[in-house]
Structure formats: structure tokens, C-alpha cells
């Protein structure tokens, strides 16, 4: 049997995903070992294997078919723009893609003037400003600590992921506009979806049922 390969985004997302898989009875050797140096975790019996990759690489692994399934944030899917099936909203890793800056920068967003936008997500930022706001902008691609850009005068605003907003506030920045909500998604390679339809559909069905059950439980607890 050809193994089904699942690419996970390194870090918190991977941990949450492995927990979810465990709750539906899918485990893999070695995933429990903290700080393991192993790259691939197998479950020979179910014909499954997991590996960890950097977020932006997950859609690439899946697009090329090196992984059949990927677990990755919606931000990465939107930014990488590869043709993939996006089959499941896992509901965790919730945050928002936002335009942020000092309160004084709000006027630039209303005026339609050309402004500079620093971001790790040039495609998302370009799409938002050009196609949705119809504002001409200069996109400046950065690789980290995006909050720094408006502080040191590299850009007027930034487009970045906001979870709690604590980092922003600490640096005197605010959310000025929301681009879209984000959460972890399951993506599937187009070819795998056709060639391994039954096995992949079964995994989706199991996870979906578990997510629905947990959501119902939560709703009941609230009541």
C-alpha cells in the first residue's frame, strides 16, 4: 500500500494537529518525543506518515505531491496561491490578517494616497489594497519583526497576522482594518484526492466528525 503522507506546519499547529489525530485514533511513532530530531513519523499499520515542514513550504510539498495532505494556516494558502483542494477548516490557530499602524496612519487608508506597506505576505497585501480598496501602494517585503517598519519609518502601515494584539500595543500600533479571519486548514493534492479518494475521504470524515462532536460539546457546556 502506498503510504499517505501528511505535511504538518512546525510548531504549535503541528502539536494541535497531532493531538487531534490522536483523538480519532491515529498516532505515529516518535511524535511524542519532544525535540526529536527525526523528520518522518510513521504508522505502518495504517499506511500513514507525517513530517514537519516550515509553514510556507507545506503548500509546496502538497502541490508537488511529495505530501498528499497538508495542515497549514489559511494565510499561507492565500499567499502561496497554489492549486490545492482546501477541504477542512480545523477551527484552531484562529487569528486575523490585519492592516496595522499607529493611529496617526489611519488617514492614509482613507485618503487613497500612495503609501508604503511592509509585510511578510506581499500577495495578500497587494490583493487587498489593489482589488478591494483600489488604493495604489508600494509593497515592501520583510521576513520578520514587521512591527518595526512603521516605527523606524520604513512604511506607513503593515499587513500582518494579529492574534491578541499584545505585540502591536506594546509598540504603539493598532489594528486599523481587518483583511480576513484565519485558521488552520487541511489541504489535499488534487491528484491524491482522485487516486486515493477512499483513504483520504475517510481521514477527512473522521476529523470532521470529531471537530463537530467537540463543537457540540463546547456549545452544550456553554449552555
Amino acid at each position, binding site marked *: 500500500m502506498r503510504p499517505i503522507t501528511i505535511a504538518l506546519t512546525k510548531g504549535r499547529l503541528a502539536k494541535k494537529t497531532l493531538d487531534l489525530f490522536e483523538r480519532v485514533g491515529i498516532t505515529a511513532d516518535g511524535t511524542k518525543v519532544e525535540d526529536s530530531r527525526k523528520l518522518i513519523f510513521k504508522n505502518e499499520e495504517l499506511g500513514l506518515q507525517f513530517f514537519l515542514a516550515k509553514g510556507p513550504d507545506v503548500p509546496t510539498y502538497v*502541490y*508537488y*505531491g511529495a505530501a498528499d495532505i497538508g495542515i497549514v494556516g489559511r494565510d499561507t494558502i492565500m499567499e502561496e496561491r497554489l492549486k*490545492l483542494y482546501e*477541504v477542512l477548516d480545523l477551527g484552531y490557530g484562529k487569528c486575523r490578517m490585519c492592516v496595522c499602524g499607529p493611529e496617526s496612519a489611519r488617514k492614509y487608508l482613507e485618503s487613497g494616497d500612495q503609501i508604503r506597506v511592509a509585510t511578510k505576505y506581499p500577495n495578500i497585501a497587494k490583493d487587498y489594497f489593489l482589488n478591494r480598496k483600489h488604493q495604489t501602494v508600494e509593497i515592501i517585503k520583510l521576513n520578520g519583526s514587521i512591527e518595526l517598519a512603521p516605527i523606524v519609518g520604513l512604511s506607513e502601515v503593515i499587513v500582518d497576522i494579529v492574534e491578541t494584539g499584545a505585540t502591536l500595543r506594546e509598540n504603539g500600533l493598532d489594528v486599523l482594518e481587518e483583511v480576513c479571519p484565519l485558521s488552520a486548514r487541511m489541504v489535499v493534492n488534487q*491528484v491524491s484526492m*482522485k487516486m486515493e*479518494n477512499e483513504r483520504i475521504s475517510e481521514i477527512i470524515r473522521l476529523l470532521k466528525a470529531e471537530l463537530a462532536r467537540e463543537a457540540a460539546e463546547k456549545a452544550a457546556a456553554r449552555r
Partner: protein
Amino acid sequence: MNTRVIHTPEGVRDIYGSECREKRRLMAAIRDVFERYGCEEIETPAIEYFDVFSSDIGTTASRELFKFFDRDGNTLVLRPDFTPSVARAVSMHMPEEAMPVRLSYEGSTFRNNAEYQYQGRLKEATQMGVEFIGDGSAEADAEVIALTCEMLLASGLKEFQVSVGEVDFFKALVEGTGLTDESVEEIRKLISNKNFFGVEELLDGEDLDPTTKAALIRLPQLFGGGEVLDEAAAFSDQGRTDAAIARLRRINELLAARGLDKYVSYDFGLLSKYRYYTGIIFSAFTYGVGEPVAKGGRYDNLLGNFGRDYPAVGMGLYLDQLMNALSRQGIRQG
């Protein structure tokens, strides 16, 4: 100082040696299959007027076309695919009495895409394909799908799936719902990405008939063997969607009779951004490449753009993708 240029521009490449030999052998094998199905070869020019590929006809985004001008200032393009060219040529040269015809073509197609860095998406790519013109029957649909299967078998592929959908099923569902063109396009994208929760979210605020809503949400998951035809029937409450299902059933029977049904599955969420498709639509998938190796479908209104009212169905093979798949699966020609 003059630097001698010996490398190619980005997105195009030289093919030589054993790769070139393999490519030629593969093309010969595929040409044999086309011939067995009674196809006549046709050549159309690589340069066409822009209008042949304009957005009314709905093939390639204008920015992805290589455009230039002739001496009179007309806009010309390098063909991005063959179907509109062949439709134009047929409208020009073939009268009603000549119908039906089966044509085959091969040659380079050109796309000025930015994604050259992704696998297999070169700016110049070889396509081979067929167009069955003047025959609107389900039998013609089944013939083209059968030809696609036999072509892939002749190439040496053993594991592949031809996924067949019906764009009219989707078109009939969204028609009369009062959804804007933008929403329909958004839903089309979400459905073809199998993003049913996105469809659900988008339709949440819309005032739609509950059966239609349920069908649109279900569409991305409506794929698999012949049994999905029965499932789709449950969502069908009008003549046009019934007709779409009846047609797929007939195609399924015809393919089963030839023993090709094991290579074929059905997918109601298979939709194309090419707006010229009117009926069945299909994509052939195999291991080793991220995208379909061949695509096709029925386009009954395309020839209308050139003044002829001929129904038509066709298939185009992305030869470079097929070669990638063959080499990654360790299959050699001849």
C-alpha cells in the same frame, strides 16, 4: 565587451538527446491513437488575432498572452491553446456538409505566465489534442473520454484517473438564484478548490431556495465512482440538471462497455475557468505531477463566436506534464 548569450530566456528551454528522442516516440504513439479514432490532422498558425482569444471567448487572461502588433496596428497573439484556433479554422474552411469532423493537432502553445518557476509550467509548452466537431451526442463525449484513456495507456501510464464533470449542472443550479456574477465566480472558485465550508459561509447570508443551497454546498464533495450520479440525482429538481445526470449515466454505460470505466470517476465540483465549456468537462490525473496531464470538455457555443453553429467536444494533452509523470513513475517509452 559583448557577452555571448548561450542560455535561453526564462520559461523556455532546449530539448535534445534522449529526452528529445523519448518525446518524439511518445508523440508518434499518441498520433497512432488519434489516427485509430479517425482524426484528420490540422495545422493552425502560432500567430492569431487577439480577438480569437479575447475575454468574450473566455480562454486565457489577457495579461497571460504574448501580444504584439502587425504593420497595420492590429493586436496579434501567440496562441495560448489550440481549441479557439481550431474552432476559427473550422468556421472558415468547413461547410455544414463536411460535418461531423474529427481533427487532431500538435504544436507549441505560449503563455506569458509569472509562475514559470513552478514545475511544468513553461512559457512554451507542447500540446497535442483532438476536437470532434459537429456531433452533439453523448456518444461523442464518451468517444473523446475513451480516446483520452487509450492515449494515456499508449503512453505507458498504468495508474491514472479521468475525472468527469458537467458544467451545465452547476450553471443550471446558479441560474435564477439572483446571485451576482462576482458571487457566482467566487463560488465557482471555492467549489473547484473543494472548499465546501467556504461555499457554506458565502451562501449563509443569501436568500436561496434550500434545495439549491444544499446542492451547492454538497457539490465540492460530490465525486467518486458511478454511485455519485445517483447521489447527484437527489439534488436535481429540474429538467436541465436531470439532463446533465442522464448524459453522464449514458457516458458511464458506453465506457463500461469498452472496459474503460475503471479509469473514470465523476466529479460535479470539477468546473473550469474557461468559460467556453457548456457540457461535460474532464481532467486526467496521475501520480508525479501536481496538475492534470490532459483536460477537455464540450463547448457547443464556441464556434458561434466565429459564425458557425456546430456543437463540439475536445481534449488537449499537456505533453511536457505527461513526460514528467512518466519519468517520475520510472516508465520509459519503447
